[in-house]
């Protein structure tokens, strides 16, 4: 049974320390959040939209609420009351929205709002943090393909499976056979989803409006803008096709990493036709009880794929289990390139600094914090702040500095990372360059998957082989 939001809220120690004047507001908030899960939804597809990822939504909401409260902690009682009212209204509005909840989940991640629950639950939750479009029946697909490609599936393909074989975050994927006989996967986006997300993000900005006077507002605004920009890119399959082509060029056949080929003739902004890659998803692969050696091999490939792309100026920013295929011949298939953050010169410079900082030289680390988290001289006098950032940096670098294979199956490593993020959020140390929104997500996502795989990977050697400063295309490219 899924835990209730109120359970999570109760589990947060900070809630026990709030002053009495806050208790009523706290109760109201608990009721409101708990009410989210009881709200009846009349339509089947909407119900699916609502219920899938319910737990992760609720957790994100609960932490989001907590995070907002932190901003007003030192405010006068009157200001806090205003804030509580704003928050109540904001959350009520949130109940009325569809995709915003998805956007909110991503913002939740942005701010490091991870639940401090046991790692396996955390991993499952992280795994489900994605949009979920309503299912599409064949008649709708047929008309969509007709309007996108100028003809229906019967005319375009030799054969076309009417039932989807996989759900994509914004639509669904169908198997088809081209006239040439090649089997392809056709990813089709639910109509109008891109602009729905746009509207939702506008609403998200409205929800965040009460924060505008806070001293870190500018960072929040830039982070939300980055989330918006990435969400827009995720809905643009032409952009994804371009990323696929670039990524495909990064791997040679001997490396056992497969990126599907795009069939341009059958692809548009809303339809993406790719080479079909047969393979198992992570859960199914684990069910075959693979040997430790095989786990390690796949783990190394997953890490290598991310690293190679990272150094090519492309951050594989949504590493969840649905994006990897474990193929029968021990090759790894990468199948979703919608959420790939491309680095420009500014980001490349930050990465160069981060590489250099792994040496542990204090002046480099200081410069990294100054530029990545905008720490000023006053902030540097805050020992606690600097220590938390230093520990986080150390955690990020730990596998890289480890001699020999690093054991990603180690629970303590993952828990430590989560605790550090929670510590930073609780102290409101959430300022960062917008690139870290997705950088952090890719680091946690990949480590969560490697944890499930219980893989041992020689990260240090991989880094030594791959390291170079990215010189990617501009962020808008």
């Amino acid at each position: 049974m899924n835990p209730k939001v109120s359970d999570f809220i109760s589990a947060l120690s900070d809630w026990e320390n709030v002053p009495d004047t806050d208790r009523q507001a706290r109760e109201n908030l608990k009721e409101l959040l708990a009410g989210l899960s009881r709200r009846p939804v009349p339509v089947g597809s909407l119900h699916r939209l609502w219920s899938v990822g319910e737990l992760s939504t609720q957790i994100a909401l609960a932490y989001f609420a907590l995070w907002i409260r932190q901003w007003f902690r030192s405010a006068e009682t009157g200001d806090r009351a205003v804030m509580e009212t704003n928050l109540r209204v904001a959350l009520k509005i949130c109940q009325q929205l569809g995709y915003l909840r998805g956007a909110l989940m991503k913002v939740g991640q942005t701010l490091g709002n991870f639940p401090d629950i046991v790692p396996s639950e955390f991993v499952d939750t992280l795994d489900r943090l994605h949009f979920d479009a309503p299912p599409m029946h064949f008649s709708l697909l047929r008309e969509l393909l007709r309007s996108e490609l100028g003809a229906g599936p019967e005319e375009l393909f030799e054969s076309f499976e009417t039932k989807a074989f996989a759900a994509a975050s914004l639509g669904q994927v169908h198997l088809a056979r081209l006239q040439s006989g090649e089997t392809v996967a056709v990813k089709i986006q639910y109509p109008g989803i891109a602009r729905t997300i746009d509207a939702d993000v506008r609403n998200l900005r409205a929800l965040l409006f009460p924060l505008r006077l806070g001293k870190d507002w500018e960072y929040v605004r830039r982070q939300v803008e980055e989330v918006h920009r990435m969400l827009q890119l995720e809905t643009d399959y032409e952009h994804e096709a371009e990323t696929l082509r670039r990524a495909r060029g990064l791997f040679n056949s001997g490396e056992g990493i497969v990126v599907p080929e795009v069939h341009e003739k059958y692809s548009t902004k809303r339809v993406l036709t790719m080479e079909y890659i047969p393979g198992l998803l992570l859960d199914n692969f684990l069910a075959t009880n693979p040997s430790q050696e095989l786990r390690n091999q796949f783990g190394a490939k997953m890490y290598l794929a991310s690293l190679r792309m990272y150094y090519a100026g492309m951050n594989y920013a949504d590493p969840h289990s649905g994006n990897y295929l474990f193929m029968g011949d021990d090759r790894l298939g990468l199948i979703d390139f919608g959420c790939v953050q491309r680095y420009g010169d500014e980001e490349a410079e930050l990465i160069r600094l981060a590489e250099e900082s792994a040496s542990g030289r204090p002046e480099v680390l200081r410069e990294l914090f100054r530029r990545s988290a905008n720490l000023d001289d006053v902030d540097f006098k805050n020992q606690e702040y600097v220590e938390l950032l230093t520990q986080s940096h150390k955690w990020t670098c730990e596998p890289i500095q480890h001699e020999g294979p690093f054991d990603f199956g180690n629970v303590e490593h993952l828990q430590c990372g989560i605790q550090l993020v929670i510590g930073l959020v609780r102290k409101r140390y959430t300022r960062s360059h917008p690139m870290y929104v997705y950088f952090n997500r890719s680091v946690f996502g990949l480590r969560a998957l490697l944890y499930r795989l219980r893989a041992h990977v020689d990260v240090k050697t991989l880094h030594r082989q791959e390291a170079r400063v990215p010189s990617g295309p501009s962020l808008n490219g």
Partner: protein
Amino acid sequence: MSALTLFLTRRVDRVILYEHAHISHVKVDLQTKVATRQRILTVAARLFARVGWERATTRSIATSAGIAAGTLFNYFPSKEAIAVALISDVLAKAKEEFEERRRGGESLEEDLFSYIWTGLRYLQSSKTFLGCALETLLSPLARSSPDHPGELIRTEHLETVERLISCHHRVRQPLSALTLQLYWTLYFGVLAYWATDVSPKQEDTMALLDQSLKLFVASLGEEASPLTEASSLREKTNESQG
């Protein structure tokens, strides 16, 4: 025959097919009549698109078609009737395509989606004037009467919808007026949205139609239960044999 069908049939009987009623006394051969009717429709469609629904008058249509205003009234009693004839002709072609494309095995939702969307696709060229004429012709709030110009479209459409429902669902009792009104309101809403939809490839209308039909089919729960696959097939066979 269900109560709804009887109800609709009676209404169809009472619908005055203006063109037939008025031209019966005109002594022109059938071929000329058909050609004149078609000319009026072609000219009217062009005028509606060019000058707009409001500004196009029966007089200007008659002048453009090279006939006297009185002659035009022998074919169509009003501008609305011309619009209805235009829409009906287009929808009849759309329905043919829809029937041809049915593979068997579709759900009710799929069938309704195909039926309506194919209609919208065919109506694309009439979109500009249909948007303006919609309220006059098809509004669910308009008082329903057999003399109402949009009644023919409404009746034909609802008959098809009822047939599709009976292909997929065992109707426990005659569909209530409320159900029909709900359907027509949703359909009208989709049409009204579509008429002014500026989203690329009208994807917003597509999503709205999809969601509206999910809502409608879910609302049928109490009046009709889905047929099993076997009985659905049987019904379809009977239907095609009948």
